[in-house]
Every structure is written in structure tokens, then in C-alpha cells.
């Protein structure tokens, strides 16, 4: 029997009993009762919490700058605000009770603060590689904001996991986009490394296994150190000022070490992962990462993850952003309107053929069976 989202827990228990599946009814019932006492936050509340933290940190920083207490540039202000937000999140996660329900207020503030921190750090990283081009800056930040939204809604309160994945993805996108212009990043030979690390990051995103212990905190600090390293030794915000080979080696070493630790922890619980979907997602992602525009890729990841996580909010976010980025991609393509028209028509017909196959052929097959 296929049911709608409005099925009751009793119906579900009956279905599981009928299928002779083992489960602990009392534990599940207790958790469900708690969930009803703390209903999961609406998408709107979560977004508003994030905007609230963002406004607050930005306005406090502006006050300090106008008062002459602080004198920093745009990139550094992103870094300070992001650091403050993440600091708040880490402080709260250390002081809050472990038994707190994921929907409790403290847990939601942690989520909001980490989301804001991640967005700001991504902006900061974007400013590092965009000192020559505004377009790159916006392309990167658009992607990063989407990815941050994705991380925010997918995982239940795990600061380290997404922080690490996201910052890595930022680095990878940044390096890919900026590689031709930036001798420092091209020196790292990110090209082939990109696909492999992106796959690993996605693997982490898809897993449900990483728990909040001291290890993730250390891991977060390690990745954070990796981001801070480009500032050393000249304390300059621009990567173009860096020539030291030592810095390059340290960055490689830290990134490598941090991923090894995470990979080990994920590998311990491999059984929980769904291999077929992960393989499909990774294949699609890598193909698109290498040949497609990054914004569309980010939207597609959200769409696939929304499907995987059975999360309607993610699905809506994925569809809307996919359509938006697809339109803006075609709009910005440097070809004539006639060529654009042809390209759109081909894509439209291709999708229509897939739809017709699913609708007519598959329905007939189902009926004949």
C-alpha cells in the first residue's frame, strides 16, 4: 500500500508489524511524543533565525568600525563576523545539555549561528579569490549560500561535519574558478584533486553517522586553521601576495589530514549508507562539476539530497534554485538569441521525451504487469 504523508504512527506500526520488522515501539513512541512537544522548526523560522544572527553581528561590527575601534577591510569583516557566529555556536553547543531535543531553542540557535558563520566564511574565502573580478565573487557566493542552506537543513546539529565539507567545497570551487589567474592555487594542482575531494565531501554530506564529540571540534579547528593559513606569513588578505612554498605544503598537509580523519570516521559506519544512490549522485555531480556551471550543480545537489532525505523544503529550494540558475545561465550565455532558442528547445524536447517515457511507457508496463 502506498500512503500519503498524513499517515498516523499507529498505521505505520501496523504496517511494520505486518512486514515482521523488528523495532522498539516504546522508544519510538517516546521520541515522537517529545517531537510533538517541540515541533520541528519551520523553514521560515530557521531562515529568520539565520538572518537575525547575521544582522546582529553585522551591525555590531559596523558600530565598532564607525566608532573607530576596529579598522578592517571587507574580507576581514566577513571573517570576524563569521568567527563570532561560529564561536557563539561552539560555546552554546558546549554548554547546552546533551539531552536537548534537536528542535529545542538552544539547538536551533546553534544551527542558525553555524549557518551564518558558514555563509560569512564562504564570503570571506570568495573575497580571497575575487580581488580582480566581481563576477567570480558573485558566482562563488551564490553557490556557497545555496550550499550553506543545504547543509543547514539537512543535518541535525553537527557543526563540524558541514563546516568542514562546506569550507572545503568553497576552496575547491574557488580554486577551480580562479586557477588560471592565480599562480598560488595552480601550484597546488587542484584540477584532478577537485573531483576526488568533492566526492568525499558529498559522501560526508550524505551520511548520518558523524557524532558530536571532541574529535569533530578538533577537526573543525584543523580546517579552520587551513583557511587561516593563507594569511600567514604576511598577514595579508590577498592570496596573490603568497609565494612561500612552506605555506602551500602546510595547507596540503592540513587538508589531507583532516579528510583522512573524517574518512576514517565515516568508514566505520559504512553500512548505514545507501551505496546505489551515492554512486549515482557522485557520478552526476562530478560530471557536472567538470563540465557544468557551478550554480546549477549546487541546485542539483540540493534537489537530489532533498529526494534522498525525504525533505520537502529542500526539494522546493532545489527546484526553485535549479530553475533560477538554469534561466540565468541561458540568459548570460554569450551566443545569439537564435542559438539560445535552439539550445533551449533541444533541452526541452529531451526532458519531454523522458517525461513521455515515464508517463506512457512505464504506466503501460505497470498495467500489463
Amino acid at each position, binding site marked *: 500500500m502506498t500512503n500519503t504523508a498524513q499517515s498516523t504512527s499507529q498505521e505505520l506500526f501496523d504496517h511494520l508489524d505486518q512486514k515482521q520488522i523488528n523495532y522498539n515501539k516504546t522508544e519510538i513512541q517516546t521520541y515522537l511524543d517529545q517531537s510533538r512537544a517541540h515541533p520541528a522548526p519551520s523553514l521560515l523560522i530557521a531562515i529568520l533565525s539565520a538572518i537575525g544572527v547575521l544582522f546582529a553581528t553585522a551591525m555590531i561590527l559596523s558600530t565598532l568600525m564607525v566608532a573607530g575601534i576596529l579598522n578592517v577591510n571587507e574580507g576581514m569583516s566577513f571573517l570576524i563576523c563569521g568567527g563570532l557566529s561560529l564561536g557563539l555556536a561552539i560555546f552554546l553547543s558546549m554548554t547546552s545539555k546533551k539531552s536537548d531535543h534537536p528542535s529545542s531553542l538552544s539547538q536551533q540557535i546553534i544551527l542558525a549561528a553555524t549557518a551564518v558563520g558558514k555563509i560569512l566564511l564562504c564570503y570571506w574565502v570568495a573575497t580571497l579569490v575575487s580581488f580582480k573580478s566581481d563576477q567570480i565573487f558573485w558566482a562563488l557566493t551564490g553557490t556557497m549560500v545555496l550550499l550553506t542552506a543545504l547543509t543547514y537543513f539537512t543535518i541535525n546539529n553537527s557543526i563540524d561535519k558541514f563546516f568542514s565539507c562546506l569550507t572545503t567545497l568553497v576552496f575547491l570551487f574557488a580554486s577551480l574558478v580562479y586557477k588560471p589567474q592565480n599562480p598560488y592555487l595552480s601550484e597546488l594542482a587542484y584540477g584532478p584533486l577537485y573531483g576526488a575531494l568533492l566526492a568525499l565531501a558529498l559522501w560526508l554530506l550524505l551520511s548520518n553517522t558523524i557524532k558530536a564529540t571532541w574529535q569533530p571540534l578538533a577537526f573543525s579547528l584543523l580546517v579552520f586553521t587551513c583557511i587561516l593559513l593563507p594569511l600567514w606569513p604576511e598577514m595579508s588578505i590577498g592570496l596573490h601576495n603568497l609565494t612561500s612554498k612552506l605555506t602551500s605544503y602546510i595547507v596540503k598537509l592540513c587538508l589531507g589530514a583532516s579528510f583522512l580523519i573524517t574518512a576514517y570516521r565515516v568508514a566505520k559506519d559504512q553500512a548505514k549508507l545507501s551505496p546505489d544512490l551515492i554512486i549515482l549522485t557522485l557520478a552526476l555531480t562530478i560530471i557536472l562539476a567538470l563540465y557544468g556551471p557551478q550554480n546549477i550543480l549546487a541546485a542539483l545537489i540540493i534537489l537530489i539530497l532533498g529526494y534522498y532525505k525525504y525533505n520537502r523544503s529542500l526539494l522546493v529550494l532545489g527546484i526553485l534554485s535549479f530553475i533560477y540558475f538554469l534561466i540565468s545561465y541561458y540568459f548570460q550565455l554569450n551566443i545569439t538569441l537564435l542559438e539560445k532558442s535552439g539550445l*533551449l528547445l533541444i533541452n526541452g524536447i529531451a526532458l519531454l521525451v523522458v517525461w513521455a517515457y515515464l508517463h506512457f511507457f512505464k504506466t503501460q508496463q505497470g498495467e500489463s504487469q
Partner: protein
Amino acid sequence: MSQASKPITPNLIEQLYHHELINEETRRASQSFLQGPRQWKLWIERLFLGLSTALILASIMFFFAYNWEDLGKWLQFALVEAAILICLIASLFPFKAKLINQTLMLAASFLVGVLLALIGQTYQTGANAWQLFAVWAVVILPWICLSKFAAHWALWLTVANLGLHFWMEQTLQLTRHETLAIPTAHALLNGTALACLLYARKIFSWLQGPWTLRILCLAFIINLCILSIQCIFHPHLFTSWPLLVALSTIAAQALLFYLSRLKWQDFITHALLIISLAIQLETALLKLLTSYSQGETATLFIGSIITIVIFTALISYLKTTHHKMGEGQ
């Protein structure tokens, strides 16, 4: 309602799995029970149909925007008209899924706009943009009534809003002090549409989806918010009929508050209204602050405190309301 018979969602199953209260087998069995393959197939089909229609219509629009002279004006007209006819005739075919007929009618309505633009482009009629939208809205109205498709009505309302906007902008030649008239007209149009929808929902089942109400409410709330902000920034407009507009805005928002919170019990609509009210409050307070401030630092400092307080109050109110609405359902 007993605890065990309360609704359960796929997201709750994911949470149970995350907290290791169920294993992979139970998770899969539960998810397939709650959202089986048939639901997903339906969803993917709808997504593909929608995307492919949008891409093909966009390609037709780009094709005529290119204004390919070699094609000749008769062939251009013949192509668009043929496309409209094909869509209309095909929409009469008894497909199993009604959505196909409705999508074809929607495509035909969109193509009418392309045809009108083509007429304007070919004959250089000198007509204003509002005339195109007005004719478009009138011509497609009969199909829209027949299609029984909420998305089709959304297209019509967008065209009507655009027509109204361009008409006021291009023909009325409003002075700076009369600009309040444009958001007022939009608020009136969308408010009337909302009232019609509320009445029609009782009769037509195809209008009962929550998103139809939410989209219209969003349009209405945005117009009311713009009106309020204009009133805050231009207090000198508070004479005669603008005063009436300001008072009506407050009354409309109060009515929406009552309906969304108590009558419809729709959290999304209620949250949108509350966000709009918070924006209006923040604007009013910041306007007051800049009028009486002693320096930039003090303004920013007090502004940050006001922002934090408003956002905290907003989130805390929404959380409480969400909780209460969840309990009530």
C-alpha cells in the same frame, strides 16, 4: 486524538534513524510506506513536464525575439498561430492525466502573449506596453475559466498586474506625490482576487490547495507592506485620501492577522504577515532614530539593538505560534 494516531512524516523517520532508534531496514520500510515509489514517480513526472514546457516556451520566445528577417512575417505569424492551435486542439484530447490538458492550455495562453508581441514588433503599432498586457488578459480569460487550473489563474493575475502597473505609469503620468496610487491599485486588485478566491474555494475543489491562498496572500501582503513603508517615509502624504489608504492598510493587515491565525490556521501565511509587520516596525523605528540621532555611532548602536530585539521577538513569537498551531491540528 490519541498520541499513536497522530500524523507521522518522512522527516520524523529520518530523525529516528539519525538518533539510532530505528535501523536501516525499518527506515526503508517506513519511508516506502509514507512516500512510496508511486508518489515519487508522480512528482518526477510533474517536474519534468513543468520544466520541459517552460524550456520549450522560453525557446519560442527567444526565437521570435531574435526577429529572424529571412523567415518572413507571414511564416512567423503562421508558426505562432499554428502553435496556439495545436496546443488548444491537443488540450481537447482526453488524456488520462488532466494535468497534460491543463499544461497545454497554459502554453496556449502564454503563446497568445508571444503573438501579441510579434504583432507589435512587425507592424510597429506604437501601442503602449499596458495595451499588450490588457488585450492578453482579456483574450485568454475564457480558456482560463475553462481550464480549472490554479497555475493558469496565477498567470492571468500576473498579466493583469503588469497591465495595471504599465497603465498607471504610462497614461496617468502621476506626480511624485501620487505614486501611492500604484501600490494601492495593486493591493486592491490582489485583495479582490483574494476575496474571490476565498469564496470560490468553497465551490471549486481545484482551488483548495494551500499554495493558491499563500501566493495570493503573499502578493497582497507585499503590496500592503510597500504602502505602509511609503506612508512611513512620506508622512506629508497623510492628508485626505492617502490617510484613508493608510487606515485601510492597517485594517487589512489586522483582518489578515485574524484570518491566518484563527480562521485558516495557516502558519506560512501568518508568518509572512508577521515578517511584513516586523519590517514595517523596523522601518518606522529606524526612521525615528535617524530623525533624532546625535551621531552615526549612536544610530548604528541603537539600530543594532532594535534589530536584535525585533528579530528575537519575531522568532520567539513564530516559534510559539508554530507550536500552538501544531498542537491545534
